[in-house]
């Protein structure tokens, strides 16, 4: 039961990653690409949490937390760069 739903969830999240990646490649403007990267890291967190349940290991949690922090900093940096043309003032 849990195994089956985990496999279905893996395929859903993988498809979500693929769609976000297509938007990253296509995205007509820069903010679209920033948003696609943001979505990509959120989906990566979801995938890592699922992997942690699947392999019954708490190791993946730290990676997910790191990706959450670094992804947020990356999004803020890119948006700030678009707003000001400079990250630190």
């Amino acid at each position: 039961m849990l195994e089956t739903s985990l496999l279905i969830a893996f395929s859903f999240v993988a498809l979500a990653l693929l769609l976000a990646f297509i938007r990253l490649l296509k995205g007509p403007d820069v903010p679209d690409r920033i948003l696609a990267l943001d979505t990509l890291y959120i989906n990566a967190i979801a995938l890592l949490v699922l992997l942690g349940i699947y392999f019954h290991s708490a190791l993946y949690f730290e990676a997910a937390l790191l990706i959450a922090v670094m992804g947020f900093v990356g999004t803020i940096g890119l948006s700030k760069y678009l707003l000001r043309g400079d990250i630190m003032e």
Partner: protein
Amino acid sequence: MFEWILSALILIGAFFTLVGSIGLYKLPDFFMRLHGPTKATTLGVGALLIASALYFSFNTDQISLHEVLITIFLFITAPVSAHLMAKAAIHIKLKQVKRTQNSIE
């Protein structure tokens, strides 16, 4: 019974993650696209993290609450990053769909 709850939470989370990305892929302009992935952040990853916390609490001998850290962090940071992205998009005057009410130009 417990396995059913876990499976339901996992499927709900994966479904909303997929819905967020479909929204990101299909919606017509940036300001609408901004709306999609927020569902993935709150409902999708939230449900998955609750499932993970329940799973590790019941299958190991200690209560596992550190998943809540990621949830809190995402709930705090998602509006901030969405706000900054929208501000940047308005700043560089991105095109909007024609029938947007109170549009910027």
